[in-house]
């Protein structure tokens, strides 16, 4: 039981680092953005996991229920998801412009062109 509960946090750590790996090691800019969104998802998962209370239910008040999970992390993450997609869109916009200017979205090719 203890370990199963910790598993949520471990998955958070692993997902975080999978996303981070994509950001630092992959040269394709779109792959980096996908990695960034995995990283983001890991943080969302951590927040929501911490908001959960054993035996609680979703914080939509109902007669006859007294224990609810914490609404605050949910509020933060709910807005963060929408902000996340907007910023990802901005990132994709920048990648598209880079492609148009440099003819490539591979990091090393872009750096090569910059050196010329």
């Amino acid at each position: 039981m203890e370990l199963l509960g910790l598993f949520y946090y471990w998955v958070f750590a692993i997902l975080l680092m999978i996303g981070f790996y994509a950001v630092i090691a992959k040269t394709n800019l779109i792959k980096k953005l996908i990695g960034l969104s995995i990283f983001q998802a890991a943080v969302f998962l951590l927040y929501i996991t911490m908001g959960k209370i054993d035996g609680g239910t979703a914080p939509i008040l109902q007669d006859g229920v007294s224990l609810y999970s914490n609404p605050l992390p949910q509020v933060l993450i709910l807005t963060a998801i929408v902000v996340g997609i907007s910023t990802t869109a901005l990132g994709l916009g920048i990648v598209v412009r880079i492609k148009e200017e440099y003819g490539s979205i591979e990091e090393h090719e872009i750096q090569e062109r910059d050196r010329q």
Partner: protein
Amino acid sequence: MIIILFGVFLLTLLVITALAIVRSDSLFAAVILTGIFSLLMAANFFLLDAADVALTEAAIGAGISTVLFLGALALTGEQERGGSKKRLVALGVVTVTTLIVIYATFDKPRFGDADAPVHQHVGSWYLEKTPELIDIPNAVTAVLGSFRGYDTLGEVFVVFTAGIGVLFLLSARTARRPKDIEAGDEPDQGLRHYLVPRVVGRMLIPFIFLFGLYVQFHGDYGPGGGFQAGAIVAASVILYALLEGEGAALRALPMGVLKWLVAGGALLYGGVGVASMLLGSNFLDYSVLASDPIAGQHIGIILIELGVGITVTGVLLCVFHAFAARGRV
């Protein structure tokens, strides 16, 4: 107990999917897997009692996010060529950090512990005060709209700014602006060749739109609210654009209108705040909007959720059209 096992199973699938996304050479396959990743994420959120968050993830992740990534892929090419650089160093850093973070988790409060520090502060206060001060069942909407209205205002302006940023980046120097697509008769007519999806899709669009409105205005009572509704409404218009072509969608909702939506929603939100100031209270304190404070809260929350919904719809559609118009250069 068994629910936790379900959660663990879903989380394992989540990790496998994430690994596959990073390993996949074809970006197109990676984007499809991202859709699955988001479905898994939402199922997990739901198991963790976060119905509103799951709804947001459902509306954003599986539909809009896939569409945006595909829009970008269409402009940049779908095959990854570079592979990885300095793989061993990166792997080393990542492994060590993972182990450190996992070591740190042993000090975290037990999963689901009601006495964890997170639950000792404002969280429980919000739950206690929501029936008394705001009197709507959905505590998440109450916190989002009223208790933490400043936060949400900030988030709406971030979304607004990101939308403006995309428009600045992608509207410049296109041979064909959305305006031209809007006016001209488009040779490109969407999924003309797929008769069945077009017929069924057309049938579904009004229902998706209607459901978006339901989520918008039912947000006080059940899972939902402006952020989710904005994404669902935007998704219905995007479906129309996919089925009938860019031109048809832009004729129905021209770019000029969309820009007004983007600004109008944020203005409506700010306007509610200013109105409450003019009525002699603090910024975004809705209690003064009606003679009865609780009725005032209800009016305020409905108005600001509407503002949020309008801005999110506008921004997502602007971004979609900006990418789509760029593709036709």
